[in-house]
């Protein structure tokens, strides 16, 4: 045999090297996963660290006299022009009689949100019997006070360098010591539309805008997408045209979303003259965006249905339409739904196409329909991130947490549907 090695000797010689390679590869894999998890962890940790405090809001207790002279001069309740802010200010002045000069009083008034006046007005509107009585109310503190108590304003730096003066800080401390300040769940964040006063700003308007848009999107893109997928998979002749269509659909799925926004601006707004900033237009644009995703997912799940099912049905005398609707479609439905939900969660996170159709706008009123002006959740995040007021920083993070929560729910739903309904062959 001379120096010729046997097969087992060759294997043995290379064994150490092969094992080493395998270990290295596994280590690299673990490393890659760890890096990914680390980035995700840092992302979530900073988001939660920044945003968690936004779910709480500071309130101040005030003894407010609902002066009949102010609210109902001449006996008639005048909700529109009555000086409710003035009532709040009177209450503040009687709580802190040491603020005498004009400048001091201005500083004092800044402790309370303008929302206090609106709250009083709503209270009087719903219960006019209270006029003339003295009420002990918890009203929202201004965002400066809120930031101070949350530790976002450093009281130890020089007075000129912070947004609150020494006097204001002393007043807040006095309120704190007497238990007239408390932190509560931030209802406004979920119950209000946008506002330029951070303590009154909420995401309800944006959430409703996103909701109406997604409703339009799912109502259009799911039936159209499924119908297109069925036709292309089951009925369309396989020729150059269907190849061309297939290539184009795959291309569309990769087109940057802003392009769909431009298309929407040209077609829906300029040509069909639909209103700007309306969820119906947003929904149409997002439909264009999600259609390719849904078509591709639906085609894949139709392809996954074994041919034996079709052949068996045909063999028993079913027409091709019956085969599709009685057998193929029900079996492919879990995959299609998963595709649709993933398409929807992509649509929910989009903001670029909405820029072009006027949905990057300041809208206070919560939209009540498909043609009311609205924004969407990602747009709201963008708008808040660009606001100069400090307290919007934490609200931006809070809105991102809410958006992520919705995305998580949708993706979870997709996973559950797949796990529950999917059939393995």
């Amino acid at each position, binding site marked *: 045999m001379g120096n010729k090695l046997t097969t087992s000797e060759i294997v043995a010689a290379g064994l150490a090297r092969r094992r080493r390679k395998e270990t290295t590869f596994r280590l690299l894999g673990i490393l890659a996963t760890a890096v990914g998890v680390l980035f995700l962890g840092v992302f979530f940790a900073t988001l939660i660290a920044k945003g968690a405090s936004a779910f709480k809001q500071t309130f101040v207790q005030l003894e407010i006299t609902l002066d009949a002279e102010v609210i109902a001069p001449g006996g008639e309740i005048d909700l529109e022009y009555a000086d409710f802010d003035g009532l709040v200010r009177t209450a503040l002045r009687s709580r802190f009689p040491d603020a005498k000069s004009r400048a001091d009083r201005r500083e004092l008034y800044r402790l309370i949100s303008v929302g206090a006046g609106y709250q009083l007005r709503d209270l009087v509107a719903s219960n006019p019997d209270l006029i003339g009585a003295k009420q002990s109310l918890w009203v929202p503190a201004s965002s400066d006070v809120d930031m101070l108590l949350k530790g976002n304003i450093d009281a130890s730096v020089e007075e000129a360098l912070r947004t609150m003066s020494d006097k204001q800080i002393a007043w807040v401390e006095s309120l704190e010591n007497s238990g007239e300040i408390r932190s509560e769940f931030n209802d406004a964040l979920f119950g209000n539309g946008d506002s330029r006063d951070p303590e009154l700003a909420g995401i309800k308007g944006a959430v409703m805008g996103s909701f109406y848009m997604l409703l339009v999107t799912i109502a259009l893109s799911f039936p159209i997408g499924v119908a297109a997928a069925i036709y292309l998979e089951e009925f369309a002749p396989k020729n150059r045209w269907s190849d061309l269509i297939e290539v184009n659909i795959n291309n569309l799925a990769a087109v940057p979303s802003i392009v769909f926004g431009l298309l929407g601006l040209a077609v829906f707004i300029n040509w069909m003259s639909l209103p700007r900033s309306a969820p119906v237009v947003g929904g149409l644009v997002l439909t264009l965006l999600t259609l390719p995703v849904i078509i591709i997912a639906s085609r894949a799940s139709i392809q996954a249905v074994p041919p034996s099912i079709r052949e068996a049905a045909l063999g028993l005398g079913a027409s091709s339409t019956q085969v599709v609707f009685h057998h193929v479609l029900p079996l492919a439905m879990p995959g299609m739904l998963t595709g649709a939900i993933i398409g929807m969660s992509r649509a929910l996170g989009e903001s670029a196409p909405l820029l072009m159709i006027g949905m990057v706008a*300041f809208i*206070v009123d919560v939209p009540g329909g498909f043609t009311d002006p609205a924004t969407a959740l990602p747009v709201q995040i963008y708008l808040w991130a660009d606001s100069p007021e400090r307290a919007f920083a934490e609200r931006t993070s809070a809105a991102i947490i809410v958006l992520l929560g919705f995305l998580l729910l949708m993706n979870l739903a997709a996973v559950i549907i797949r796990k529950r309904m999917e059939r393995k062959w």
Partner: protein
Amino acid sequence: MSIQKKSIVLPLLALVALQACGKDGTDSKTTAGDMAQPAAAEQSEPKMSGGAVAQSGRDYVYIVGSSTVYPFATVVAERFGRGSEFKTPKIESTGSGGGLKLFCDGVGVDHPDVTNSSRAIKQSEVDTCAENGVTEIVEVKIGYDGIVLANALAADSVELSRADIYLALAKEVPGEAEGELIENPFETWSDVNPALPDSQIEVLGPPPTSGTRDAFVELAMEGGCKSVDWIAALKKTDKNRYKAICHTIREDGAFVEAGENDNLIVQKLEANPNAFGIFGFSFLDQNKEKVKGALVDGVAPTFDAIAAGDYPVSRPLFFYVKKAHVDVIPGLRGYLREFTSERTWGEEGYLSERGLIPMPDKERREVAAAVRDLTPLSMVIE
């Protein structure tokens, strides 16, 4: 059995779609009812018939324009919306140029009623407006905004002249001989002016689409540029060349376009003490424990200095109103009244708390009177 369950899903979705359309229809009806302009035909599916929506009018004020005026206009809109029977105006942040383009597109409910602008309207824009039937425009000056050059609080305070700013940021600067231009050779601030710190020139600023950038270039760069005699003389002889010299910012990395997000610039300044950022006074005001403004020509960017007109890099802010829309769009006149009332834009008005620098008393009274009478803009052709 499981197959039957699944086949329910499709009709269910169709039902949702149907309800959606139905709700849509009723909604457009209620809004149409309130409108000054009559709605012609009601249709239950506005998605399919754009015409119906276009004719059904609008019951809220529609505002577009500058992102610099946006933080002020939104506050006014919100107060107006909460305090009156009208809906809150809708404000889109499109930038000054984009806003004027939308504004000048035509008269009617599809077009904005008001556009905010961080610069005065141009003759060319007035012409475009007129071509599209927007003939009577009311100009409303609302106050002043200072543009600051700020750095981190931890960094050295600096005092710049406008000439320093020009030399540090221009693409080309005057060379030794008169009339000669050389590629900007300055790398550190001390190269520009020995009195300045010996640190790399690194300035974060807004992109060319921004009104803040326009104003910065015009007020700070051109202000410094003019101090060179032969360039100043060019203004009369070759205006285009003069503008090209004074208005072109260097592109070799010393000036970084940081997008329109001023909060981001503030964060970057904190992280990098050598860098300067260019943004509006309101951001300096809100972040004064993080950044500080550089003195320009010996004047610090403070509220009082800008109000008094001492700080050189400040500009007026405007909005423009379509006269044809007043009294047609519900709430527009009220919004104008709210904006021009003393409690809004006065010395102690709520806009001053947001960083808008009020105009002097006399000017405020004049503008308010012009708004009351809706005196249209008379553009003098230069």
